[in-house]
């Protein structure tokens, strides 16, 4: 039996963090990250999302993409709760540098300072960056 099969059969749960650093509509990163996060939900792992730098723009309220004729995937962040993905972290400095606060966000998040975010990242088994 391979190591991977052993892990599956013994139900090992690893800590996965997806780190989002890009704004949502100027490139495909944000949507791709969201797709991977949703896939990860199927594997019963300990999943968390971090939003730093321009990544905080992904979860800003009021996005309307009709004018640029692309998919508005922002409501999907609100559905993550239904997949038991409830750990969303935002770096405080990223909000402040963009004139945003928690009320501007479309999901409940934990706002962390840089040191707290660094500690959380270091505590993960796997960090996947977008």
């Amino acid at each position, binding site marked *: 039996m391979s190591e991977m099969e052993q892990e599956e059969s013994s139900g090992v749960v690893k800590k996965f963090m997806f780190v989002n650093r*890009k*704004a*949502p*509509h*100027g*490139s495909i990163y944000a949507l791709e990250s969201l797709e991977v996060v949703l896939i990860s939900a199927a594997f019963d792992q300990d999943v968390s999302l971090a939003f730093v*730098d*321009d990544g905080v*723009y992904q979860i*800003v*309220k*009021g*996005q*309307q*993409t*009709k*004018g*640029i004729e*692309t998919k*508005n995937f*922002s409501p999907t962040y609100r559905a993550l709760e239904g997949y038991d993905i409830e750990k969303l972290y935002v770096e405080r400095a990223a909000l402040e*540098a*963009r*004139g*945003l606060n928690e009320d501007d966000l479309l999901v409940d998040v934990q706002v962390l300072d840089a040191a707290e975010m660094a500690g959380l990242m270091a505590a993960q088994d796997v960090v996947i960056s977008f």
Partner: protein
Amino acid sequence: MLHIVNKSPTERNALESCLRLALDGAAVLLIEDGVYAAARGGAAEARLREAMKRVKVYALKGDLEARGMAARVIEGIELVDYGGFVDLVCERPSCQSWL
């Protein structure tokens, strides 16, 4: 000249370089992720306001709406649609995209 900026001011220095190198009277159009610079309260606001004393700044409306930023636009920035974008390109003798 029309300067076109499509990168977020907090991710790249495209806007910063553009404003440094744009002549008085030039036009600057913010599109795609560049429109985040047009939002109040961000790190780029002071720099942009300073530049608006000598260059005319426009932003693409559809891109602001897509990003939830349409209600936060700094006063004095003129919003244009795709037709307005074409007009700006035609009005100016040249244009430069800051990638």
